């Protein structure tokens, strides 16, 4: 089967489209025709996906990548046309050793210990969001009152981005991850957010603060274009993904009351529950995509040099060969080893921050509002089927 019509439409909001489960049941590595006619591959098995992500023979460079989706890849297409090479500082889409240079400048800022030092402040932010929710009274939209402000405020303070400027960069981020956005609108959003951070970098140079961007500026390792690219990446990745995990994770718990009770009644279960929610929800629709730099054999299939390989991480993370009963949410399961943060050299730089934010957010929410429930029927919650980062647009809750 090579004429796959890729779909993001879900029959059940918490499950990837069933089509991909059927594909995985047939084979972990599938031939797939890409939207530009390229005959590439789709990976649905855990072991193969992990191997591809760790294999330096697979590149992450955008100019080598074929787009798997026809209509919704206009932005990617435009990036390919306008800027054949990856923009300076966008190390997420670079290979080693170029990637290594940027990553090593940042890893010291995101260690387990450093992130742990942020815990008191994250607690404080979380509690003040809950105070405001209680003062306002139900019903409240959990996305705008809780899930979005916590990671936004944390990443702003960490990077040294003024939180007062959030309206514009949150709006631009929304456009960047909107699968239906026109290519030009996405380019404009990227230009705006880059200009904003470029300006901020100039101000940090003149008057440094005690923050990550000031530190990067002072290191003198990167020029302004590179600094801007890094800052855009950290700001966008730093709030959008975690915000959606907090909100969609809450939706998942509210629609699985037994799991919610298990996490609420045993605080020791929260760490495990976070890993399980990361695995079970894997909040992207498809991807990432890699391209073979030489011929590589995968499960007996010959992937030729130049072939693009699309990994379907939500399906991969439910592979019963690695996670038995993987279609079921079970917060008591040993879920570490999931690929929700990726694997290999590009594994999420901010994962230890995201873990702490989620642990604090879920446990405070369940502790402070034990009667938490949806304020609308579950089927009326608007899902982010139209955004590259999955989640809920709004989550009306009551307590």
């Amino acid at each position: 089967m090579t004429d796959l019509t890729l779909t993001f439409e879900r029959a059940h909001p918490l499950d990837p489209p069933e089509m991909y489960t059927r594909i995985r049941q047939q084979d972990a590595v599938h031939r797939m025709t890409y939207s530009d006619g390229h005959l590439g591959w789709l990976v649905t098995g855990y072991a193969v996906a992990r191997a591809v992500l760790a294999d330096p023979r697979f590149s992450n460079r955008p100019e080598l990548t074929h787009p798997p989706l026809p209509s919704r890849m206009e932005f990617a297409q435009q990036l390919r046309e306008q800027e054949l090479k990856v923009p300076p500082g966008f190390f997420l889409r670079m290979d080693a050793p170029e990637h290594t240079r940027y990553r090593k400048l940042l890893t010291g800022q995101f260690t387990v210990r450093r992130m742990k030092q942020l815990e008191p402040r994250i607690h404080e932010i979380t509690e003040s969001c809950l105070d405001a929710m209680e003062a306002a009274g139900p019903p409240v939209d959990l996305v705008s009152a809780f899930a979005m402000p916590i990671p936004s405020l944390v990443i702003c303070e960490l990077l040294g981005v003024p939180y007062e400027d959030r309206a514009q960069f949150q709006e631009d981020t929304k456009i960047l991850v909107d699968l239906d956005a026109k290519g030009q609108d996405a380019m404009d959003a990227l230009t705006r957010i880059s200009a904003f951070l470029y300006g901020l970098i100039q101000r940090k140079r003149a008057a440094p603060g005690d923050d990550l961007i000031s530190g990067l500026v002072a290191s003198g390792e990167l020029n302004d274009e590179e600094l801007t690219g890094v800052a855009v990446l950290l700001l966008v990745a730093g709030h959008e993904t975690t915000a959606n995990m907090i909100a969609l994770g809450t939706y998942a718990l509210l629609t699985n009351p037994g799991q919610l009770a298990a996490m609420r009644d045993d605080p020791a279960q929260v760490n495990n529950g976070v890993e399980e929610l990361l695995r079970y929800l894997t909040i992207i629709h498809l991807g990432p995509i890699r391209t073979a730099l030489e011929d590589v054999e995968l499960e007996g299939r010959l992937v030729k040099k130049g072939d693009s390989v699309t990994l379907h991480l939500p399906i991969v993370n439910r592979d019963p060969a690695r996670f038995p009963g993987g279609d079921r949410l079970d917060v008591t399961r040993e879920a570490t080893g999931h690929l929700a943060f990726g694997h290999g050299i590009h594994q999420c730089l901010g994962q230890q921050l995201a873990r702490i934010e989620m642990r604090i957010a879920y446990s405070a929410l369940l502790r402070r509002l034990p009667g938490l429930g949806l304020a609308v029927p579950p089927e009326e919650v608007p899902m982010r089927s139209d955004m590259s980062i999955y989640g809920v647009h709004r989550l009306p809750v009551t307590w």
Partner: protein
Amino acid sequence: MEIKANTQLCIGAGMCALTVPQVFDQSDDEGLVVLLEPNPSADLEEAVRRAVNLCPSGAISVD
């Protein structure tokens, strides 16, 4: 059990330090793996093997 850590391969994801903080740490400057205990006691063996498996860049190994 003897553990080896390779800072050339390390990408500072922190999975080892998160999984077995008694054995692994991260340097403050670059966040790269620091081996606190190359020969940990037998009761830590399972956790160390889990950390080796979780490392995204193959920077740690056990004999």
